[in-house]
């Protein structure tokens, strides 16, 4: 088994020509990064920063102006590389007249799943994405959350090594987003490499091993989530029943060691956690 990086992007640049005079718009500017196998990689940035263009170049849907991309050891997104990759596009749109099950089976056949294995693969993908109940309805009747989930099912039906998810939680309620987060964790536990583009920073922080942040086409930060988020010069101590006397005593002890308490606050749970605690299930299942 190849143990090299799942994706290597080196000096990637993409210019789009605009108008008749051929003015150039630089969408991606000399971007380089590596995504190790078996990790969840978050690609973040504001709208129009070049994330989706970068993903499209990785998938061979758009050709780069300069730079190189290698995917699963292949020098570019060959048919062989794409057969081992799953992709959920941003705001996915599928043929409305197909049922969810038909779509996933159709994608399985296009991705090279053998006819005798299609039913099993489809069933597995539908179970993992919690779409079994709605699988026989036409896609035209699906809610946004269900579209994202069926999109995820079509992306993973052929058991790919690499799964690329472009805004999988866009338009999905917090319960659905949390479910998608769980699916990502579940895929990671099976050794898949996942590239995640998302604006849900809390979720990215929870599920990603590494992140890269892009702004105006450039890569402004890349590294392990723990490394980039942890402030090594400060510590948090959570204390129960802190009385004023105990606080004064603690301050004195800390002062003897040259340390100082800068703030004392009550811990808060996130709104995301509170919402999921109160709302038990998604309405669109």
């Amino acid at each position, binding site marked *: 088994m190849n143990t090299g990086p799942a994706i290597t992007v080196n000096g990637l640049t993409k210019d789009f020509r605009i108008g008749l005079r051929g003015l150039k718009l630089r969408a991606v500017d000399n971007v380089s990064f590596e995504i190790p196998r078996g990790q969840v990689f978050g690609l973040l940035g504001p709208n129009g920063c070049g994330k989706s263009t970068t993903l499209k170049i990785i998938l061979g849907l*758009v050709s780069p102006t300069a730079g190189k991309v290698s995917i699963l050891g292949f020098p570019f997104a060959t048919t062989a590389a794409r057969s081992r990759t799953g992709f959920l596009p941003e705001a996915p749109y599928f043929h409305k007249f197909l049922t969810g099950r038909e779509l996933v089976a159709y994608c399985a056949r296009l991705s090279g799943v053998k006819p005798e294995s299609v039913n099993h693969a489809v069933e597995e993908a539908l179970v993992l994405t919690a779409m079994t109940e709605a699988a026989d309805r036409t896609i035209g009747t699906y809610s946004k959350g269900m579209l994202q989930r069926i999109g995820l099912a079509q992306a993973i039906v052929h058991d790919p090594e690499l799964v690329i998810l472009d805004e999988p939680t866009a338009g999905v309620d917090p319960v659905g987003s949390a479910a998608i987060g769980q699916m990502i964790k579940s895929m990671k536990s099976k050794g898949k490499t996942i590239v995640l583009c998302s604006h849900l920073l809390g979720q990215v922080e929870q599920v990603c091993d590494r992140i890269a942040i892009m702004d105006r086409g450039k890569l402004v930060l890349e590294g392990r989530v723990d490394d980039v988020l942890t402030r090594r010069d400060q510590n948090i101590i959570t204390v129960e029943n802190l009385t004023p006397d105990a606080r004064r005593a603690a301050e004195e002890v800390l002062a003897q060691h040259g340390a100082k308490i800068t703030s004392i606050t009550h811990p808060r749970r996130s709104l995301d956690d509170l919402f999921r605690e109160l709302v038990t299930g998604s309405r669109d299942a």
Partner: protein
Amino acid sequence: MPNFMKSSLTRISWMTRLTFLEAIRQRFFAFLILLSAALVLSSVSFRFLDFGHGELKFVCDFGFGGMFLFGSVLAVVMSAQLFFAEMDNRTALTLLAKPVSRTEFLVGKFIGVWLVLGVFIFTLSTLLGIILWARCQELTATAIEVGKAPPELSITGLLSYTGMQWARLGVVAAMILMVASLARTFLFTVIVGSMLVVAGQLQWLAQETLLKPGELNFFSKALLSISTYIIPNLQQFNIGDALTLDHGSVADGAVTLALFSGTCYIVVFLFIGSLIFRQREI
């Protein structure tokens, strides 16, 4: 068969199925097939004109006219519409991120559209055949009663003509997909495609002009010669009357030659189309 070829054919067949299913559901297809069927069936109401042998020719012309005109409109609009639906709705993004090559995508689209055109043309041809056969029986009985020669009708000829029309529509569909792979909009594709179809129907005029000696200067002659190779002669497929009512008047090998030429144009158009489509950014 090598594995890669088998996989490729599988992907093309699935692209074809999806395109066919999408096309057959379109209201535009239903509308055109109903309109054309109404045109073919309405030809019976002109029986009162009682042209004898000429009546069958009249019915033939009506039916062939419907198949030709509405078939051309369907081939141009549906090929362009199905291609741009994939682009504009971004379903192409999902499909082409799978191990589907651009050539497989385009060929799958073509075969899907061509099958729908086949359904259209064979349905109308069956209707026309039934009408012609029924009227021919009546005219034959009348002719025998009055001691005249019965009218001639070749169902095999009608089938040959149907096959030729299907081939013609295949050439049109492949030509439109080639234009679509280059174009940015549906409207541009339909306009340019329609102009090419008209040029194809009139291409025989260029051939005739070239045969007349001394009428053209070198530049015009070169330009016309090139156009006769680039633009297919669509008129060569329109020999329905001769095939159905006067089979003997068709030159030997004319049908085979037309079908061979049609196949070559389809292959060339799809090849050029897929080369252009490979460069397209999705």
